[in-house]
């Protein structure tokens, strides 16, 4: 039920629900941006039951991925562990 997935905002319509076209890996859906009014075209938003609930912080995502990559380098000699 708390399943929420990131998608990219392609287009925003004016109106009380701020309905946007959001692409999820190529599949598009209508999503309300009323809870994340600061989102603009090109942003990634996290979508739950037809509503964006946050704007994805791409820099924070990048920092996580870099930390994982650094850890993987360190962990290299133990690659053969079960």
């Amino acid at each position, binding site marked *: *039920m708390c*399943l*929420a*997935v990131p998608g990219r905002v392609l287009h925003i319509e004016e109106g009380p629900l701020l309905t946007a076209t959001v692409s999820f890996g190529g599949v598009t859906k209508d999503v309300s941006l*009323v809870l994340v009014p600061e989102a603009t075209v090109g942003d*990634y938003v996290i979508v739950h*039951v037809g*509503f964006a609930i946050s704007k994805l912080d791409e820099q924070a995502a990048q920092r996580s991925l870099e930390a994982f990559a650094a850890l*993987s380098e*360190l962990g290299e000699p133990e690659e053969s562990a079960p």
Partner: protein
Amino acid sequence: MKYVTEFRDSKAARALSEAIRRTVRRPWTVMEVCGGQTHAIVRFGLDALFPPDLTLVHGPGCPVCVTPVGLIDQAIHLASLPGVVFCSFGDMLRVPGSARDLFAAKAAGGDVRVVYSPLDALALAQAHPDRQVICFAVGFETTAPAFAAAVVQARRLGVKNFSLLVAHVLVPPAIGAILNAPGNRVQGFLAAGHVCTVMGCEEYDELVRRHRVPIVVTGFEPLDILEGVLLLVRQLEAGRAEVENQYARSVRRQGNPEAQAILREVFEPAPRAWRGIGEIPQSGLRLRHAYAEFDAVERFRGDVALVGEGGVEDAECRSGLVLQGLLKPPDCPAFGNRCTPERPLGAPMVSSEGACAAYFRYRRRTDSLQEVRHGE
């Protein structure tokens, strides 16, 4: 898919699990609260990557599972009324009520529709002004703002034939109840990243202060969960108890102010019974008085009173123990034989976030590690 696939990388998963192994020196028991995380853990076999001293138990974070059986009975009754269109998320349809489920009500002629969003239910109300459209409002703090927004929109548009049967539940009171239970053995929590995306972290500061347990706000992909566990065991080994945010790409400390504002505008906290667990004070939401016209319980007062709040559980189902992390699904005697997704005895076997469903679906395979390796 961007921002999904990268968080399933197998090399990083191994490195994180190595780091967990190196960190753990004493036995610890930690709980992931959210059923979405339970599914990821079981699906990707993440628990197999942990050292034997680290025990992960599954929590009550499945709103469908904890919806009281009496409320399901009310839903079934309302869905069977002539002139009603009853809308629900799909996984609610097979949840057993006292005698039958919503699916049976549909088969018997009730107009039951599966919706993806509360806005789909509102659109149905606009399309059928001569019918009463009721939507089953199930979910945690993640979902409540969406239902609140649908109610505000219904009022703005003057839609009179739309109402909610509200079953919303709140996470922090449930964590408090687990910590207060006699014999509790949970020493740290992975908190649900999407709940905190909406609500922020402050309510968890309070729990940490009161109970001195570490809480790590965690995302839903395999690397998120492994990193969340790593941060948690680091705190435990160092004797720290803090709220940490693993899921910074979505969770801000203060949460989402717009979502909180609309949630508080439309709903207020209320006592709520959790199926299999019992009543937890102020652990649910109800519509505020100003929005009572959208409350299906008010609108169908006579019908709801007829059904009451009792409800009869299946005597064999151990869902209460499963939801409190006291029993693993395969240890339930009915699991996989008398209880299957086709013929469930309890809600955790059919909910998309139910622990029993996760084990039934994924635990009979041996290739789960493979899946982390190959991304999707």
